[in-house]
């Protein structure tokens, strides 16, 4: 569907990092800590105070292939009463429940673990439920994730994302299990620590949507799937043979080598997973293995 392209949002959608190295070196969490140290955290409460008793102006993308009035994509304006702590998800839920019950979006856990409500908020991929509305410039533009087909309003088709996830054989492969009753496999603390961040992926699709390469190459496995593969390839409980098999999947034409280290995925990941780093590490592993063979 080409409705996405009709929207004049391309220019602001993929703002190139001004200083890629700097961006890559700071996780969102580090960024938050930095702000806090610099006394910038107070900004939020000031913004909140300012907004109290007022409404929040949100502009929400609307499209429905089936309803005549919505076949032409547009933005609808809603003015939602502000409450302290209100998130983007709270605002669209309010708009839906109070103003227009046809406003459609996915959401479920509202605590950043189900990954349903990744939206494009003021030009960045964010989870609606963990984005405080007071942190955003108004009017807040809420759009479906770019580079994915829009099903309706904020709902995008996730099939391609799931296909890519499935393409990396996303399941533990270790047939050689310890013998004896209740004997678990051993895993060192260090190794668990190494894969820990990669296991936090909630399949929200924000990274795929932010990736310029994935946007241009539909076959590129993309950051989420590669991270999923990393989770297994780096887990010491899987043996060397399967690790090599995994690397062969990853080093194919549309695998890790497609990544151009733009850090967009790392920047938008709501779980702070160092996706770009994981992709680079797998590139190094692939090189190491190939050198062995050649």
């Amino acid at each position, binding site marked *: 569907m080409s409705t996405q392209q009709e929207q004049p949002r391309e220019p602001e959608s993929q703002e190139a990092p001004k200083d890629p190295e700097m961006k890559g070196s700071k996780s969102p969490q580090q960024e938050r800590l930095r702000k*806090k140290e610099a006394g910038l955290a107070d900004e939020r409460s000031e913004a909140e105070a300012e907004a109290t008793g007022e409404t929040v102006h949100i502009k929400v993308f609307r499209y429905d292939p089936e309803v005549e009035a919505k076949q032409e994509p547009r933005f609808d304006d809603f003015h939602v009463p502000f409450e302290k*702590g209100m998130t983007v998800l709270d605002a669209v839920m309010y708009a839906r429940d109070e103003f227009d019950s046809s406003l*459609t*979006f996915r959401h*479920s*856990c509202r605590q950043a673990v189900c990954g349903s409500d990744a939206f494009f908020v003021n030009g960045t991929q964010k989870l609606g439920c963990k984005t405080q509305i007071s942190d955003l410039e108004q009017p807040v533009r809420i759009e479906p994730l770019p580079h994915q087909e829009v099903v309706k309003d904020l709902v995008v088709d996730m099939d391609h994302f799931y296909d890519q996830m499935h393409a990396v054989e996303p399941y533990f492969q270790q047939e050689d299990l310890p013998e004896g009753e209740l004997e*678990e496999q051993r*895993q060192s603390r260090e190794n668990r620590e190494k894969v820990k961040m990669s296991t936090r992926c*909630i399949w929200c699709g924000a990274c795929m949507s932010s990736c310029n390469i994935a946007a241009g190459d539909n076959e590129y496995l993309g950051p989420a799937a590669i991270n999923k593969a990393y989770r297994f390839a780096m887990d010491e409980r899987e043996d060397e043979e399967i690790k090599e098999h995994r690397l062969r999947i990853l080093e194919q034409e549309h695998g890790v080598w497609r990544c151009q280290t733009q850090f967009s995925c790392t920047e938008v990941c709501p779980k702070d997973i160092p996706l770009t780093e994981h992709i680079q590490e797998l590139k190094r592993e692939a090189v190491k293995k190939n050198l062995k063979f050649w």
Partner: protein
Amino acid sequence: MYEHDVIVVGAGGAGLRAAIAANEAGADTAIVSKLHPVRSHTGAAEGGINAALREGDDWELHAYDTMKGSDYLGDAPAVETLAQNAPDETVNLEHWGMPFSREDDGRVSQRPFGGLSFPRTTYAGAETGHHLLHVMYEQVVKRGIQVYDEWYVMNLATTDEEDPNDRQCEGIVAYDVQSGNVEGFKANRGVILATGGPGQAFDHTTNAVSCTGDGHAMAYRAGAPLEDMEFIQFHPTSLPSTGVLISEGVRGEGGILYNEGGERFMFEYGYANNDGELASRDVVARAELTEVGEGRGVNDEYVHLDMRHLGEERITDRLENILHLAEDFEGVDGLVEPMPVKPGQHYAMGGIDVDEHGQTCIDGLYAAGECACVSVHGANRLGGNALPELIVFGKRAGRHAAGEDLGEPEIRTGYGDDVEDETDTELPVQPGSAGLGTGDDVAADGGVTAEVDVLEHAVERERERVEHLMNKDTGVQHAEIRSKLQSAMTDYVNVFRTGDGIKNALKIIRECRKEYQDVYVDDPSRTFNTDLQQTYETRNLIDVAETIALGALVRNEFRGAHWRQENQIRDDENWLKHTLVSWDDGEPAIFYRPVILEGGDKTYEPKERSY
């Protein structure tokens, strides 16, 4: 029409485990879920999985703790099955690659949890459920099990014999959320409901918005009773603004609760002199609300949970997720300030009445996980006991539905000669037909007696309902009814309960039913119509809320999570029994079944619970 041997409804922990087990037992298995599997609410579980894995611990201790925690309303055969199978199933997860937290020797870590006599809660940081869900979905992918995701299951296709024990479930009716097509799914061997909790019946809940009791309501209307619905667990530590859960792991690691005056009230005010913050959840939830009620709460609303003294290293290692939650949703940095917490609806101990094989009284209809009541949790669930329930009983339901012989069940289900009818309590409202105004006055809602194809008939019915809801131009919207229902439940059927309050709730629930007759769907589109889906869900919430309130009204005693002002003693003489509510010709009927305290080789004697 689609056809499979076993159809699992819901794709959280119990559903995925059931599907894997059915698949392994050789059945052609499919999962039908309104969410994509990795978005299920199991992912939000934080704490861990209780399993007696270590020297010094054994399943009997686990069973004992669970019986005691349940306030002697758990059925011993179910509790023992849970405790016996949890270790194998937990290690099995490890074998599937689950990233558990580790000890120095590489073995999985375990930690203390409320009400446990041994630190047997196996965990993966404070995000155990997330990992459990993903690992299990990975196994589903590995086995190529068919998943129909974003298909909303609207109803069961059940025969309509007069006695629910004679009925048979032949399949389900679902609609494809993306296209709006309503289709039948024939289940040759069985339907397993694994639809999770009904937390959305309350307005302050840790549950996802998808937790609308769909499975409860469908089974109930098909004739399977709901058991012990009055027992709702209120988790003592949820964030005040959103209800987001702060794991019991925080208290397990040594987190402390303070009132506004900085007093450690669990000890200082004597709520739990032995166990303090690690008393069982019902005790802590009441303590917090008592503090707030007596003017010692912070901002008259909540108390403080402090973990700063644990030190950054330990917090980051074991509770990192909590730091993120507190910061993102409350703007509080858990490393430098205490976190605001208050009780929030968290878990339903009750559910669809099943035996230890997961089977309901309706042939071919199973339930597992939070939507089911075996019952292992009785009047109060111990932290860390929900996840083992999912995997142990999910697996059993899957195997049994696939045709494996698990022997004679010890737990009985449905209406039978072992039950006692409710005759004493005066109900404040006359329960009556509560359908959608489209002539659904048959006994098994959506059912039919014979001759006609049961599934076809059920599909036709749902298509008519959708037409009716979509064609209606004016009336009430679901959001209005839902919000009224949620407020009533939170106002009157909360942690503290009175007979009059519950009667008020029942009156409001009846009003909601009446208003629901006039409900309509405003969104005219068939594409991803969440308005339609939520309208269906709201109906389910009304049914479930009514059973919760009815159970709470008739049980005039104080047991576990169920506190009644009029009668603050546990009345073992009269109430060592389960409450069952069944849908009898469209009206709720209440009856009781004795609790089974007799285990394999010992009987669990009720004792006073002290912490």
